[in-house]
């Protein structure tokens, strides 16, 4: 579980910040494992040092994905790519890869090429079609994403996938966040539990307008 003091120590602010009094005192919740989902994290050194900054999630064959995306007219290459893929279906399963530290936004054709390269590499490692790989990038806008660093971490990521890594995944996608965010719920369906578990990152540039 992430303690508040530990999380605050990796925030990239140059001026020491007081710990937000709104930070949860009980740390990251103990989320239920969702059957068919695995996670792995790695330190690719995209911007941050001494912490994880890439998260890979794999969902089992037969999974379906839904999503909503920012309506920003200057949305990032990864968003455009996900939007194009989200209505697709496939029995093969899917993967989600997220890097923190670089948003790969306002990077034009170079940004689109980075997304394609990452999707192709993830697809190859996990034996998926590239159309079932969904990426996201978060961090500074307008800098080319050093996607080779992400791809270099893929061997470790694909070998490290495990079902109980959701808390580590939540930490790897943080930027200026002072704590990792997650929650879960269980619904009873005729005596059998259905689990819902989610993670989020976000602390600034926050006024979502998604459809």
């Amino acid at each position, binding site marked *: 579980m992430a303690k508040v003091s530990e999380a605050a120590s990796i*925030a*990239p602010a140059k001026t020491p*910040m*007081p710990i937000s009094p*709104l930070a949860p005192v009980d740390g990251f919740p103990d989320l239920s494992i*969702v*059957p*068919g*989902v695995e996670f792995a994290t790695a330190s690719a050194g995209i911007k941050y040092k001494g912490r994880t900054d890439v998260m890979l*999630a794999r*969902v*089992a064959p*037969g*999974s*379906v*994905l*839904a*999503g*909503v*995306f*920012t309506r*920003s007219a*200057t*949305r*990032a290459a990864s*968003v455009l790519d996900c939007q194009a893929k989200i*209505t697709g*279906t496939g029995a093969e399963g899917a993967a*989600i890869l*997220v890097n923190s530290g670089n*948003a790969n936004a306002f990077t034009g054709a170079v940004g689109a090429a980075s997304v394609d390269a990452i999707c192709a590499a993830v697809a190859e490692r996990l034996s998926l079609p590239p159309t079932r790989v969904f990426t*996201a*990038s*978060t961090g500074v*806008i307008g800098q080319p994403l050093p996607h080779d660093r992400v791809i270099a971490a893929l061997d470790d990521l694909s070998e490290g996938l495990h079902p109980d890594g959701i808390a580590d*995944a939540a930490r790897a996608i943080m*930027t200026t966040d002072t704590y990792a965010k997650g929650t*879960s*719920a*269980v619904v009873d*369906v*005729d005596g059998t539990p*259905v*689990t*819902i*578990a*989610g*993670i*989020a*990152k*976000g*602390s*600034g*540039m*926050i*006024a*979502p*307008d*998604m*459809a």
Partner: protein
Amino acid sequence: TMLVYIFTDAKIARAPLQRMVARAADKTFNCITVDSDTSTSDMVLVAATGQGPALGDLRGSHARAFERALHGVMLDLAHQVVRDGEGATKFVEVSVTGAKTNDDARKVALAIANSPLIKTAIAGEDPNWGRVVMAVGKSGAAADRDRLGISFGDIQVAVNGLVSPDYAEEDGAAYMRGQELKIGVQLGLGRGVAQVWTCDLTHGYIAINADYRS
């Protein structure tokens, strides 16, 4: 940027899952603001692995319970994002009732939640309800000054366009010292309602953001 990833083992087709996600996002993530700045990368992805039980008839009780739970997870995550707003020390719920339409109510709610003057007043624990009047007026929504009501939590600050006769400024100031605040606006024009969530705006926001790139 806000990124959200939700996973479930429910067995559900893509189309109804998409409808559920879109409906819930409109009432949760699209109703929060830390700094009024929409990111270039916001997204919410929900994956359903189908390894659990099927939800059956989408109008049935199981599917409805699932949608309620999904909404709850999304609202919880949305609130966690606001609570971690850069430099935030207060969590603020803004509720608008009596607007001509729901769209108007949303305009008023976001005008309040995005107002730097209101957010800095909250940071300073100043019950500056005059700034709420300002935000209603500039929102673009239909409003009638003489029907306007404002409340801080259970404290009625203004009614029918006037300061409430029971309102005492020290009560408002005491309320603002809390960490979880509710600002209510009653427009008295119709049945439109909206609820949004935000945080205060402190010096901490500048400390984090003034040199983020460099």
